[in-house]
Structure formats: structure tokens, C-alpha cells
């Protein structure tokens, strides 16, 4: 350790070579980090799905209709298919969810509500929409079977709440951040429908969500960061919102789920639904959550592997550079090494200095590489959340540490062999 302080000074004297080595290493780490972050993100996404919902890998099924659109022709057939699915005995539940925005009106606390949103939306893409709040509409089965969020006050949504008409009062759960704006029993109105057909729907607050409640993104339930519901509303679909216009139906196509009683029912249910779809002229396909995750994982891992290989190529090139610079630095410092050995340093001490120097270089580069990766991911944040930022956990850091140690190990082997070959008698006075 005491020799290390001397070596730090010696490194400072060779600072430009060291800076260049570090830059080379940082580039390698940045590329490797990119691959590791991708792999970590997949893990996070899978973990997130099961921590936010009660979905089951093998029995929760995603329904796709690749040729689905917002034409009246398709919508009519799709409605028939939905009705049919609900009659299949092995289907325990079916439904969808949707994320949109509403602007509450005609309520006492509007000023307070707007002020609250000013705070909540400051410096976000919502900052010019302080009169609005995002809302997630659920079908009953999705809410009943998959939601995990708890309430801090009020009551859960019941089956009857999901059977309301457009004219009924729609029960609503509000996010934790609004707990000091709305109270149980408060009512407000919001427009539903479009243009001349728009009308006010009345909502009544029946519950307040617990802080930190989460639900999946309606944009991509598997890949996107889950929504934190603290600044959301949650409500049951009512007819206008669910099926009012063909567009509303098309939107729901993104998130159609079935829950089976048993995973063995999958093929029969798949066959039945595909058969019915064929009869109707639309072509539904089904995938278990597990299969969808595997497909996504395989596709993403393939690109991650390629990036990783590119990173490894950089590492190999860097290793050659690091090794040759370390060997030439040992050759250049032969005299100093000799002086240290004459005064009592063993070859092991010198070897330790070489390894520590490499360790310091590699670790500094790894840390800067991680910071750089975080910064570039953060710069890449177009939405409120970039799910890749969630990959920055201990698991990633440990992997980078392992890669770093591997680099140190590989790069120190030849220089150490070089140190071992040093003959002290040649070092100081250069005789023989």
C-alpha cells in the first residue's frame, strides 16, 4: 500500500498515456454496458410484470388480432368474437384496459386540483395540461384477476360498478397524490365522446389508492415502465368509453387478455377462438405471457449478444493496448523498480504494484463507463420514464465488476511474467 502511493505519483508522471488508456477502456465498457443493460432490462421487465399484476406465465393469454383496425366491418366482427370468448367454459376471465386522459369539471376543489397538478407536472410533458389527469379504464375481469394495487381509503370496485350505463354515476379510484384534493363521495364531471356527441359523465370518488400503487403501461405492457398510479385515476369502463366509437375498440386491441383455469386448456381454447375468428373473417392468435416474454427475450438477447461481442472485440483491442503500455511502462521504469528492490521490495511487491495500477485504471474506466452509460440512457428518455434506467442496480454493477476483474486478470498476466523475469543485478547499475 505504501508503495502504491509512490506508484500513484509515478502514474501522475505518465498521465497522458494513462488518460488515453482510460479513454480506450471507457469506450469498451460503454459498449459492454449497453449489452448488459439490455439483458438486465429484460429481467426487470419480467419481474415488473409479476410484481405489478397477478398475471400468470402459463395461464394468462394475450389475444392478438394482427389485421384488426377501426373499420365498422372489423368492429362488428370483433364484438361478436368478444362475446363468444366470454362463453368458452375454460376461460376464467377476459378483458382489456386502456390509458387516457380526462379533465374533471364542475367540482368544488378545482383550483386546488389545478394547483396540485402544477406541482405534480412541473418539468414533465404534462406541464401544460394541469386541468387533466391520466386515467386507466378496466374491464371487470382484468381488474378482478390481475390488479394488485391496494386502497388507503374507501372501497374496491365491485362487479356492479362495471355494469354502469353512460348515464349512471361512474365510481372512480383516485391516486394517492390527490388524497388531499378529493374525498370519498366527491363528484365531478368529465366529457366523454367526441364533437357533437360529447356528453358529461359523472364520476364519484369511492376510494383512494395506496401510495406507490402501480399498473402496466397500456402502450406496451411488457416492455414499458409500469405506470405509478399516484397521479392517476382508475375507473371501470362504461359503454361509451369501451365501445362508443370504432376507434375505442381499436385502442383496446393493444391489451386483450384471457385468463385460463388451467394451462392444459391452452390448445383447445386457442383452436376454438381461431376457428371462430376464421368464421368471422378475422384472424386472432393467442400467446401465453410466457411465450411472449420468451420471444421478446430471444429477440432482444440476440441484439444484446451482438453488442456484447462488439464490446468484447473492443476489450480485446484495448487489452492488447493495455498490456503493451504496461510492459513498456515496466521497461521504462526498470531503474526505479531496481531501486525499490534494492531497498527491500520483492518481485511480489512489484507485481502487486503492477496489478494495483491495472486495477485502478480498469476500475476508474468501469465507473466512468457506467456513469457515461447512465447519462446516455438518461439523454435517451423521451417519455417520463426510460425503463433501461431501471437496469442500473447492483446486479449490473456486479457484472461490470466481474468483467473488470477479468480484464485486470488478462492484462496483468504478461506484465507479471515480465516482472518475474527481471534480474535485480541488471536493473540498478546495468552491469552484466
Amino acid at each position, binding site marked *: 500500500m505504501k508503495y502504491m502511493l509512490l506508484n500513484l*505519483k509515478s502514474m501522475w508522471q505518465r498521465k497522458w498515456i494513462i488518460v488515453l488508456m482510460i479513454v480506450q477502456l471507457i469506450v469498451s465498457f460503454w459498449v459492454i454496458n449497453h449489452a448488459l443493460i439490455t439483458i438486465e432490462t429484460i429481467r426487470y421487465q419480467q419481474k415488473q410484470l409479476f410484481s405489478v399484476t397477478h398475471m400468470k406465465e402459463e395461464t394468462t393469454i394475450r389475444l392478438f388480432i394482427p389485421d384488426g383496425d377501426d373499420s365498422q366491418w372489423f368492429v362488428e366482427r370483433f364484438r361478436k368474437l368478444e362475446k363468444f370468448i366470454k362463453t368458452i367454459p375454460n376461460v376464467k376471465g377476459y378483458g382489456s384496459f386502456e390509458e387516457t386522459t380526462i379533465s374533471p369539471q364542475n367540482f368544488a376543489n378545482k383550483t386546488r386540483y389545478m394547483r396540485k397538478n402544477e406541482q405534480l407536472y412541473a418539468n414533465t410533458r404534462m406541464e401544460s395540461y394541469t386541468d387533466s389527469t391520466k386515467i386507466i379504464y378496466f374491464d371487470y375481469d382484468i381488474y378482478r384477476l390481475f390488479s394488485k394495487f391496494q386502497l388507503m381509503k374507501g372501497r374496491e370496485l365491485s362487479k356492479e360498478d362495471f355494469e354502469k350505463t353512460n348515464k349512471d354515476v361512474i365510481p372512480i379510484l383516485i391516486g394517492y397524490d390527490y388524497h388531499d384534493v378529493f374525498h370519498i363521495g366527491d363528484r365531478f364531471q368529465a366529457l366523454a365522446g367526441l364533437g357533437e356527441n360529447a356528453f358529461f359523465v359523472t364520476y364519484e370518488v369511492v376510494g383512494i389508492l395506496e401510495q406507490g400503487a402501480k399498473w402496466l403501461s397500456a402502450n406496451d405492457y411488457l416492455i414499458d415502465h409500469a405506470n405509478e398510479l399516484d397521479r392517476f385515476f382508475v375507473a371501470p369502463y362504461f359503454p361509451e368509453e369501451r365501445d362508443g366509437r370504432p376507434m375505442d375498440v381499436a385502442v383496446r386491441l393493444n391489451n386483450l387478455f384471457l385468463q385460463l383455469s388451467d394451462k392444459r386448456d391452452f390448445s383447445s381454447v386457442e383452436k376454438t377462438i381461431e376457428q371462430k375468428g376464421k368464421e368471422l373473417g378475422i384472424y386472432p392468435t393467442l400467446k401465453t405471457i410466457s411465450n411472449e416474454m420468451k420471444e421478446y427475450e430471444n429477440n432482444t438477447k440476440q441484439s444484446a449478444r451482438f453488442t456484447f461481442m462488439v464490446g468484447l472485440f473492443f476489450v480485446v483491442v484495448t487489452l492488447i493496448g493495455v498490456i503493451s503500455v504496461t510492459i513498456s511502462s515496466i521497461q521504462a521504469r526498470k531503474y*526505479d523498480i531496481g*531501486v*525499490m528492490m*534494492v531497498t*527491500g521490495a*520483492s518481485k511480489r511487491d512489484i507485481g502487486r504494484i503492477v496489478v494495483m495500477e491495472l486495477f485502478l485504471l480498469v476500475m476508474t474506466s468501469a465507473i466512468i463507463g457506467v456513469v457515461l452509460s447512465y447519462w446516455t440512457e438518461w439523454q435517451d428518455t423521451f417519455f417520463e420514464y426510460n425503463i433501461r434506467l431501471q437496469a442500473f442496480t447492483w446486479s449490473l454493477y456486479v457484472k461490470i465488476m466481474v468483467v473488470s476483474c477479468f480484464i485486470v486478470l488478462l492484462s496483468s498476466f504478461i506484465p507479471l511474467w515480465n516482472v518475474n523475469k527481471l534480474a*535485480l543485478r541488471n536493473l540498478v547499475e546495468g552491469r552484466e
Partner: protein
Amino acid sequence: MFIELQNVTKIYGKDEYATKALSQVSLQIERGEFISIMGPSGSGKSTLLNIIGCMDVPTEGVYRLEGEDVTRLNDRQLSDIRNKKVSFIFQQFALMTNFTVFENVELPLLKRNMSKKERREKVEYYLNKLGIFHLRQKNISKLSGGQKQRVAIARAMVAETNIVLADEPTGSLDRQNGEKVMGLLQQMNEEGKCIIVITHDEKIASYANRMIYLSDGCIQLDKGRG
């Protein structure tokens, strides 16, 4: 016996490239002796000094230091001896040029179990003793030859070893500085240290009370042995 060499041979290289630097050298040195080793270039003086200082090991023969067979020791044990029992002074000073006087003198203490404060006190004591305390923060590259050799002597002193090996310590110095260096070595000898000096200079050799003359790797003359 303090230092004892029995039939020590040192061969460099192999087969047709083999060069015998020392041949069947036997030598006994008592504690507190001041010895000069003389001889023509290539006679094996430096090889002998390297072996005594554990910078090299004999090809054949036995070297005992304070009764311990040094030839059987590994690199770590030899480095321990270089740290605790032997100090060196070289013609070209053997100082780390990009480091300060203080850092150079402190070097032997880095291997020892001493606090930073203890090391600082000891280094400063010897720098004061040699009158170079004011140079402590100066880089070695900024010093004159005489000053550099004083730093090398301070480093040898700070180690407080019983053996000081000097390989032509005045070779790079003018007469005045050379005499000062030899005066310091004499002073160290009076303090009980065993000094072994390699020199070509009869005058320098005359500081010693025993003179060994080497030629072709063999001791030709061992004068003044008590």
C-alpha cells in the same frame, strides 16, 4: 561469523556463452570490518558485492549471512534481507529521479511496520545529520552529484542495517565530495557497521582496514585481515 562465503562460484549464461564471474571464492568477514575490494574491470568485484548484498545468488557454493544459508532463500526472503540487513550505495546513486529527496530516503522504511509519523521523524533525523534537510522536497533530478550521493548515504543510514555495500561510491564525484562521502562511510564504520567498498582508487581503498584484491573471479590478495 558475520559473513561467510564458501567456494562461491558465479556463472552467467549457458553452454558456449557461459562466463565465470567468480570462481571458488571463499571469504569470511567479521562484524564492524571496513573492507575495500579492488581489481581490474571484469574481475568479479561487483558480482561478489551483488552476492553479498543478496541482489544475486551464487551458481555454486554456500553464502551464510549471520549463520543463515542465504542460497536457500526465496525472492521474498532475500528482499527481506536487502531491507533489514544490507544497504547499498552505488556509483550512479540508484535514486528514483522523479521523486523527492524525502521519498527516496524513506524507501527502505516502506517495507517496515512503521507509522507515517515514525518514518517522517527518522528520515528527517538522517537528513539533518547529513545536512540535506533543506533539500527534502527537492526532486532528485535537481541535485548535484555530491548531493545525490549524500541522499544515497542518508537512505543507507535510515535503513540502520549492519552491512553497507558501496560500489565505487566516489566514482561520479569530484575529489572534495569523494572525500566527504568516504568520511561518512568511515563514520558509519565507527558506529559499528560493516562497510564493503569496491574501488579502483588506492586512496579510497586506504580508508579501509582490510583490502581484498580480485582477479579473474578469484581472490588474489586478502590484506589486513584481523
